């Protein structure tokens, strides 16, 4: 009898390779970037030509330490580089410079958030431990053409931080949530851009299954070189199902390296690179061990931004935002900081400001092409507020005018549209359009008295005086009508209560 899939537990560990945000390569001064002609970003150090020596890029080191601080790892006193030897044409030197025994980041954890039962309900949070992260060089790119292969070394030597998790993930959804959180942490700290379409984040995914409740880990497979979050999710789902099928059919799992065909949504066994695991690591004699000063660590610590879930908690608990708005804002540091500048200019109504930002501002930015990706599921969200025609204080000004009853909510929409078009201050638009609600008490008093005297509302007045609070609303419509919608609703309410009181 076959058991149900819920009898099995999947155990996942990820190795995430992230290209660091630097201008030059990690051990050479050659520049690097996406989309250049083949072999145009290569120098003699990248090729390991005789007489050249690698020297480590300070920025790559500091970005790596910064990542360590972001995930709360202890920064080691020193780190060292090793040679990983293998013969494969993606590496011109026949070895890759990497860190085996003394990596630059040791330990740490990443907080993740699982999807809630609906869009406006926060899902479960948990922590995924980081085993370590090491700073190495990326390898060249191979393309296969007919009977031969072609090699482009532009990518060789690009600083690559390999982040290795503990096997703490238990589902495809958790793996996906981890990667989303990791990308947010990396991009918000400026460590990496994580543009997956440019191959800036690639993932190896280790999957094993075991009977629920069992302690011993099952035999794992490693699916290599996944270049999107959806590929990781799909691989986990596919591998879990495949391994359950194998074990339930009485077969065993072979520890193997696999590939993923995203087009066909299926995995396959990679033809074994013969003895690829016999890397014969040894300390690289060209690069001395690096001592990391505590002064550097202290300086970098100041650059660690508030983590996205700390920020989300603060928005919900301190600013009173609904989860939906908070979760949208914290995904993008630039957007969150924009929002906070607006709140600083009008601290009385953070929720009102959040509504404008997450609904109207993002919608109009998307329509203008500045933030097209933010409304989709793109990671990282590509919002660009640099070109936003509205400044934070200007939006705050608009919300303030609405809160004070100077303009109605309906009028505010009109002002916002105009503001987005022209970048003018809310007050200037209100005055130019003559939208200012009538706050002239003398004139409004006359209108209010005239409406009260109208026999058509006598019944409502009687009800209000009998204690039905809501009946007063029936009088507001006719007053608004007589003022062509310009009357300040707060003032109308006050005057009505004064005259009827």
């Amino acid at each position, binding site marked *: 009898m076959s058991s149900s899939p819920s009898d099995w537990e999947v155990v996942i560990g990820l190795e995430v390779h992230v290209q660091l945000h630097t201008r030059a390569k990690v051990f050479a001064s050659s520049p690097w970037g996406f989309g250049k002609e083949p072999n145009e970003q290569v120098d003699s150090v990248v090729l390991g030509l005789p007489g050249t020596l690698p020297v*480590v890029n300070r920025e790559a*080191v500091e970005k790596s330490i910064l990542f360590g601080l972001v995930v709360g790892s202890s920064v080691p006193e020193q780190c060292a580089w090793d040679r990983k030897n293998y013969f494969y044409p993606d590496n011109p030197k026949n070895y890759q410079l990497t860190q085996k025994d003394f990596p630059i980041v040791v330990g740490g954890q990443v907080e993740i958030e699982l999807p809630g039962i609906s869009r406006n309900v926060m899902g479960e949070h948990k922590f995924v431990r980081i085993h370590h992260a090491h700073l190495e060089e990326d390898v060249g790119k191979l393309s296969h053409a007919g009977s031969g292969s072609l090699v482009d070394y532009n990518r060789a030597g690009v600083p690559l931080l390999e982040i290795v998790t503990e096997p703490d993930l238990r589902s495809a959804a958790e793996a996906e949530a981890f990667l989303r959180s990791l990308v947010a942490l990396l991009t918000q700290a400026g460590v990496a851009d994580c543009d997956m379409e440019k191959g800036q984040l690639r993932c190896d995914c280790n999957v094993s299954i075991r009977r629920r409740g069992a302690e011993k880990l099952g035999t794992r497979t490693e699916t290599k070189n996944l270049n999107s979050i959806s590929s990781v999710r799909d691989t986990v789902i596919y591998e879990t199902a495949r391994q359950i099928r194998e074990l339930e059919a009485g077969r065993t799992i072979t520890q193997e390296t696999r*590939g993923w065909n995203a087009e066909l949504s299926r995995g396959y066994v990679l033809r074994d690179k013969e003895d690829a695991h016999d890397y014969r690591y040894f300390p690289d004699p060209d690069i001395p061990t690096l001592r990391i000063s505590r002064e550097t660590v202290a300086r970098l610590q100041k650059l660690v931004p508030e983590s996205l879930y700390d920020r989300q908690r603060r928005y919900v608990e301190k600013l009173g935002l609904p989860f939906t708005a908070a979760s949208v804002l914290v995904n993008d540091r630039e957007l969150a900081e924009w929002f906070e500048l607006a709140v600083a200019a009008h601290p009385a109504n953070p929720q009102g400001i959040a509504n404008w930002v997450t609904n109207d501002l993002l919608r109009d930015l998307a329509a203008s092409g500045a933030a097209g990706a933010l409304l989709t599921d793109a990671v990282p969200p590509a919002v660009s507020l640099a070109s936003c025609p509205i400044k934070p204080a200007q939006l705050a000004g608009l919300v303030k005018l609405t809160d004070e009853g100077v303009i109605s909510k309906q009028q505010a929409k009109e002002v916002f549209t105009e503001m987005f078009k022209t970048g003018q201050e809310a007050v200037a638009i209100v005055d130019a359009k003559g939208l200012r609600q009538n706050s002239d008490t003398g004139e409004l008093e006359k209108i209010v008295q005239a409406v009260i005297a109208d026999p058509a509302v006598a019944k409502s007045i009687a009800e209000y005086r009998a204690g039905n609070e809501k009946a007063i609303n029936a009088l507001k419509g006719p007053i608004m009508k007589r003022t062509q919608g310009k009357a300040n609703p707060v003032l109308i309410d006050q005057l009505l209560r004064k005259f009827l009181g």
Partner: protein
Amino acid sequence: MAEGFDIDHLAKLARLNLTAAEKVLYSSQLTQILGHFQALAKADLPETIDLARVVSESALRSDEPGPVLGAEAVTRIAPASRDGQISVPRVVDDEA
């Protein structure tokens, strides 16, 4: 494998075609070399990084892009090239 290595395996890793005579010669030389390291390994030393080779961050390079060779120069030193790329015998890592 009494010497602690397998000459055929090492030759394969290094992509070397050794003759029977070379295997005998290199096996004996490698045994001597390994014997030297085994002697070193017996020394009673604390588990630590080699401190004589530790440098401070002043030995790092700044993140300033420098000159590149250019695809023309890169491909010229390779045995074969095509369209600005280095041409090698087919290596398979795609779906078989």
